[in-house]
């Protein structure tokens, strides 16, 4: 049985934040979970996927976040509690659905889980999704601890039903990826079938209907405001003339800071958990009589702006600060010592001395940037594209996935990136507005997610570029989740259909399609040349399963290779491929036999054929064993 199904109310389990949220959803009787994987929310989806295999919960990896949002919206409108799960930028994809869903509302509880990523540990921007709640006029809850993450998730469904609106549950990386003891509540058996009662004059958003719906949304906003004012998630602790207003994980840093400074009788803290609509009366009541206010939040001055509005409306004159010089930055994460320092300086309290180490004589340590794995087929594809291009200079629009790591030399195969699917859309522009050859790269999962409209656009508008679809048979970057092109039957998951990439692009009308195996270097280069020379849109499908995924599925791996004495030290292998299994020792290239997957790409690149398979049983793999993965 999955540990999240443990039926022992009151028992404490050590859970990851994402698991605590999943448990909260199960305690709310969630019947439908839909998602597109994205760090830092991926383990939440994985947990519910695993649970769905043991229960009646309907779970799907949707093709993208917009569809996930739409699935959850219709589920909730049939009376089945639902959750749409995505990372912060995923909400951009789903925003079109979300904005109007706020008008249409829901029947059963629906939670939109957005996981923000301050500092961009694994994201392309650090946008602050709290503004989505404001823009959509939707209620928003923000947990500060994991215990609260479970409890708030459960309560979010009730709140959603009370208001008839989806509730935004907003977290940041340090909630999703923290671990702590979480006490369990009671699991609720889900409703997994409901019914849809037709009422087109409330559900079909033509202008006349939407005008009515907007009025209703504003009424619900007022009701939500009243609920926020009395919410137990907005609470005051401590006492004193100085006031701190905070939310999310920052509240933990504030509590620790005030305790460390022994200032519990000088500083009172308003912790907001129900942050939209803002409880302006509660905020004004907190401000009254205080000397100075510090707003502690990551990202944008979302709360700070609210507090300033609340003060103005209540006619309270008080110094309110949060972001700015000597205070907090809009960039990155906060940390406990930083919060303590700013809090102490703002309120004129003596800070604790932190003894730092002088690092001046520490030598520079070679960087350890993330790299494509040993045997990664993307590395071979990038090498082959360069060989196929010859001395032609090309622009490489890229996309979101492991292959983005191709930006580093010597692969140098990424020149421009905005978002999921942007490789295809921007390729058209680079082809139109430069005289350079354009070769765009997109992964298989990203192709399904947001690549297809760009291809249709390129065909219709007759753009001239080559699109390389890197098909490694999985969504590798986020932990090997499936996508519509995956053979689910073979992975032991019956009941799915498979959508073949070739069928899609052929059906769209792409005339030039070549399929290559990146492990076959010469053949791939020849085929790629043909596609590159083609005038118009050509597509190369470079297909080879992700070796990490293969290993996880316990497929047989190849023999490791060795560099033999024939080596003349040209170093084409290390200099052009930079495979992490290769290293230079005493001026000679060597291969780490436990990392080598036997892909044989280096052997084909070597001018002397000096790299040969080791004639022994493959050794046990000891590196990069995945610890958290989907299958």
């Amino acid at each position, binding site marked *: 049985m999955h540990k999240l199904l443990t039926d022992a109310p009151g028992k404490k389990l050590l859970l990851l934040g994402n698991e605590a949220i999943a448990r909260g959803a199960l305690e709310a009787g969630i019947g439908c979970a839909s998602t597109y994987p994205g760090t830092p929310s991926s383990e939440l989806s994985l947990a519910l996927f695993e649970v769905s295999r043991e229960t009646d919960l309907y779970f799907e990896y949707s093709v993208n976040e917009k569809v996930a949002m739409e699935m959850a919206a219709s589920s909730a409108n049939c009376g089945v509690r639902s959750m749409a799960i995505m990372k912060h930028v995923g909400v951009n994809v789903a925003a079109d659905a979300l904005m109007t869903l706020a008008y249409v509302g829901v029947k059963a509880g629906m939670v939109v889980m957005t996981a923000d990523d301050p500092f961009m*540990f694994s994201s392309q921007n650090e946008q602050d999704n709290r503004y989505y709640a404001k823009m959509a006029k939707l209620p928003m809850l923000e947990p500060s*601890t994991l215990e609260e993450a479970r409890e708030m998730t459960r309560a979010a469904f009730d709140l959603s039903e009370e208001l008839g609106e989806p509730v935004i549950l907003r977290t940041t990386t340090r909630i999703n990826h923290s671990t702590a003891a979480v006490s369990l509540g009671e699991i609720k058996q889900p409703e997994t079938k409901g019914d849809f009662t037709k009422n087109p004059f409330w559900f079909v958003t033509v202008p006349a209907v939407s005008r009515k719906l907007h009025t209703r949304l504003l009424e619900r906003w007022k009701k939500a405001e009243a609920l926020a004012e009395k919410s137990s998630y907005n609470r005051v602790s401590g006492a004193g003339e100085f006031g701190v207003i905070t939310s999310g994980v920052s509240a933990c840093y504030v509590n620790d800071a005030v305790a460390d400074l022994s200032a519990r009788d000088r500083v009172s803290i308003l912790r907001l958990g129900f942050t939209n609509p803002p409880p302006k009366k509660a905020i004004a009541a907190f401000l009254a009589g205080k000397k100075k206010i510090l707003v502690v939040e990551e990202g944008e001055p979302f709360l700070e702006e609210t507090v300033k509005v609340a003060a103005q409306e209540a006619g309270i004159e008080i110094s309110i600060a949060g972001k700015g010089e000597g205070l907090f930055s809009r960039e990155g994460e906060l940390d406990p010592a930083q919060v303590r320092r700013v809090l102490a300086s703002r309120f004129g309290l003596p800070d604790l001395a932190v003894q*730092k180490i002088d690092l001046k004589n520490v*030598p520079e340590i070679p960087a350890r940037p993330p790299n*494509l794995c040993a045997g990664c087929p993307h590395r071979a594809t990038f090498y082959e594209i360069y060989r196929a291009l010859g001395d032609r200079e090309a622009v490489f629009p890229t996309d979101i996935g492991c292959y983005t790591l191709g930006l580093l030399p010597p692969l140098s195969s990424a020149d421009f990136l905005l978002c999921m699917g942007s490789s295809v859309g921007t390729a058209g522009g680079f082809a139109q507005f430069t005289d350079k050859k354009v070769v765009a790269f997109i992964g298989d999962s990203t192709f399904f997610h947001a690549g297809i409209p760009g291809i249709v656009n390129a065909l219709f508008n007759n753009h001239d570029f080559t699109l390389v679809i890197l098909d490694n048979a999985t969504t590798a970057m986020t932990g090997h989740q499936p996508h519509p092109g995956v053979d689910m039957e073979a992975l032991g998951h019956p009941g799915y259909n498979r959508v073949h990439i070739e069928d899609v692009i052929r059906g769209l009308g792409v005339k030039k399609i070549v399929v290559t195996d990146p492990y076959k270097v010469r053949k791939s280069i020849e085929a790629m040349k043909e596609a590159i020379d083609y005038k118009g849109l050509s597509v190369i499908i470079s297909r080879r399963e992700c070796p990490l995924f293969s290993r996880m599925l316990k497929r047989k791996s190849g023999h490791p290779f060795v560099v033999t004495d024939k080596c003349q030290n040209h170093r084409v292998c290390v200099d052009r491929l930079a495979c992490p299994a290769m290293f230079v020792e005493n001026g000679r290239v060597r291969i780490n036999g436990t990392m080598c997957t036997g892909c044989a790409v280096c052997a084909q690149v070597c001018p002397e054929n000096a790299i040969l398979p080791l004639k022994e049983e493959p050794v046990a793999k000891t590196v990069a064993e995945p610890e958290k993965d989907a299958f």
Partner: protein
Amino acid sequence: MKAVRLVMVAVGGQGNLLAAHVLGQAALESSVPVHMSEIHGMAQRGGVVESAMVFGEAESPIISDGCADVLLGFEPAETLRALNRANPATTVITSTSPLPPFTAALGKGKYPEMGTILSLLKEKTARVIPLDAAALARRAGNPLAANMVLLGALCRTELVPVTKEAVLAAMETHTKKSFLPANREAFSLGFEAAA
């Protein structure tokens, strides 16, 4: 209970997340409050994996620079790189088995000498416990058990408010059965080595 802060650094695949999980489980079973956080977005791609564990009375799941009471390094150069997390009173436990990054293999940067690493660590912190975790893991019968060697060494210092028995009990229930004998042996070799 005064907060004790432990930072663990490793290279993807060295098993520090499992080590953190075992230690966290031991804390839970011992009713010691624990908050942990980890950054492992690109861990599978050879990057650095860092875990922070805060035991005792604190709410924050992360540890600011200079605030680690114990720094546990699974790879010597990574231990040195994480020195900004330590302060002059910190105890450092580090494996001495290097895993040079591929950038060094490509000639971009030089992997520091082991002697330099250890003398720098000793110069700047209160106590350094170096041990060849990879060799001890091999001796225990499983090269993947270096994480358990390091847990053993950590327990020996008695700096973290979790007993050896609690960690061994958590290992029992939270690591693979087939690896258990080697894991136990690895833990005890690490425990001995940290004397």
